[in-house]
């Protein structure tokens, strides 16, 4: 029983980590929380869905959805975010404008999806079973699809980790997000690098959408709660920290799973709120967040 709950928690935690990663990637390079993330992710998932409808092959749709996610992320940066940062410099609107703007973009994407595909719940078919593994008479509520979710997420997070720590691209990304001016003066094309960061974030969101959606249904709003959980996970882990995104995601996923099992399903977000408040009370910048001296 305990193991079951733990496994489910890891599975959902992995997804939250992916969403949190996408948010942290964009936050570190732009100081903006991208509320449109769930819209970008769900759009990529819809494209993946279309491909499965046409080809009946989940394994083809997956990488294509990821590529689309990267492209969409890049486009949002080029067409939308650049413009936004230029217009909003200071004033009472500076902190809230990106929130509203990305919320607007979210609504825009979801409305467009509704106009094209309709709002009905769709099924994104995956060859993997959503029924739990059976060991003799005992069925674990952890299915092959759940296993795939954990593997895929771990793979993506691992790849990002390697890229960030050991490649020149990762170094450029980190330099550009810590100190864009110094990075410029060192010859790094910060605009290009930031765009790559957005592509990575878009890809991460697309992976999350494409692996989780087969376990439920697809609709324009189907990833919204996932985004909220991802955001909470990112805040718990500390918005500046990629490691924090992973830790936050797992903490939240496992926490939710145990609440679901031992209390009730409806209060999960209330518990999430309480977990969040407890963490922020002790560490107002999240577990791995920067110390008090630095501006958010």
């Amino acid at each position, binding site marked *: 029983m305990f193991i079951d709950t733990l496994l489910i928690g890891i599975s959902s935690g992995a997804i939250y980590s992916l969403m949190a990663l996408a948010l942290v990637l964009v936050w570190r390079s732009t100081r903006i929380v991208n509320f449109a993330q769930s819209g970008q992710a769900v759009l990529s998932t819809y494209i993946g869905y279309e491909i499965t409808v046409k080809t009946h092959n989940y394994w083809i749709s997956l990488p294509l959805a990821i590529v689309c996610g990267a492209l969409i992320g890049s486009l949002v940066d080029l067409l939308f975010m650049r413009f936004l940062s230029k217009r909003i410099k200071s004033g*009472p609107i500076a*902190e*809230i404008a990106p929130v509203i703007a990305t919320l607007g973009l979210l609504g825009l994407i979801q409305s467009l999806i509704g106009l094209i595909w309709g709002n009905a719940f769709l099924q994104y078919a995956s060859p993997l079973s959503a029924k739990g593994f059976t060991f003799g008479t005992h069925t674990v509520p952890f299915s092959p699809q759940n296993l795939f979710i954990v593997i895929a997420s771990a793979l993506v997070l691992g790849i990002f980790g390697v890229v960030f720590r050991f490649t020149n691209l990762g170094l450029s990304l980190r330099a550009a997000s810590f100190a864009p001016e110094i990075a410029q003066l060192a010859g790094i094309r910060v605009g290009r690098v930031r765009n790559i960061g957005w592509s990575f974030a878009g890809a991460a969101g697309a992976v999350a959408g494409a692996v989780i959606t087969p376990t439920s249904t697809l609709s324009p709003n189907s990833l919204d709660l996932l985004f909220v959980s991802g955001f909470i996970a990112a805040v718990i882990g500390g918005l500046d920290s990629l490691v924090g995104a992973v830790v936050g995601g797992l903490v939240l996923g496992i926490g939710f799973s145990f609440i679901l099992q031992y209390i009730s399903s409806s209060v999960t*977000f209330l518990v999430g709120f309480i977990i969040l408040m407890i963490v922020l009370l002790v560490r107002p910048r999240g577990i791995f967040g920067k110390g008090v001296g630095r501006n958010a």
Partner: protein
Amino acid sequence: MLNRRLTPLSRAGILAFIGFVLLILSRFVGELRNYQGAQVAVYVIAISSITLLTGYSGQISLGHGAVMAIGGYGAALSFSLWNFPFELAILFGAAVGTLSGFILGVAAARLSGPYLAGTTLALAVGLPTIADQFKVLGGEQGLSFDIGDAPTWVRKIGGADFTQYKWFFWICIIVALLSLWAITNLLHSNYGRNWRAARNNAVAASLAGINVARGKVLAFTVSSALASLAGALFGLLLGIVTPTAFPLSLSFAIVTGAVLAGVSNLAGSIVGAVVLVAIPEVSGALATHLGGSQKVTANLPGLVTSLLLILVVLFMPNGLRIKKFKGKK
């Protein structure tokens, strides 16, 4: 219109006059308009809570829908379970909301920007689920807040065909005008100035003797008082409060309304409220004009709101400013 050159008394006079005009107008418009007018009044109160919190005190909340829920449930609870007269029920809801706002404000004062946004977001999604847990809150069915028709003495003033919606309109307009008066005075007082000073530069403000943390808590508390008041009226208009009556989109909607008008522009909260109520209507008409298919009707309001929002933020970051008086921002 309500700028700092006016004294509280003269503001009261102006608002009373506006109220009088509106109440007379209500006799000549149809049922739908009366209901929508009441909705606008409620949104004005809700949006002004954001104007105070974000525009003046610089704190961001994506969870004020949850605060509205507290007000709504508080009012409905006291009305249904303890048989409070509806006026007291509304005040009770606002009181509960104020207290909650104080608690939240204390927690929020330590949090900045996105951390506060994340916390309020979690609250917005999490709080309504409490109602499912406790039977006394009515679960999924919710609690009734049906105040029935107007009492006889009001009907005598209102005229022969004084319907329930006209009664709603009167209640909401009067409360809205009273709140607007109170909040305008507050924003133009030292409190308002201190909030803005702290928002612009917290270090400089505290060096100048302003207690920034206390100001933030006060702002959150007053803002919650307004939001929960709006929530109580919201429940009144619906006749019932349910967990789904205060969704996440409500929190987003009132922030949207505040931004449309210029987040620190109080008079513009009226514009924002009108736009929020008008959009479903306008896009509904537009959708029928465009053929009325299911996809279009369901998604056009969202498309219009989102486009409007993006355009306003990109091109008029300070909102649709009512440029009558050029004062300092």
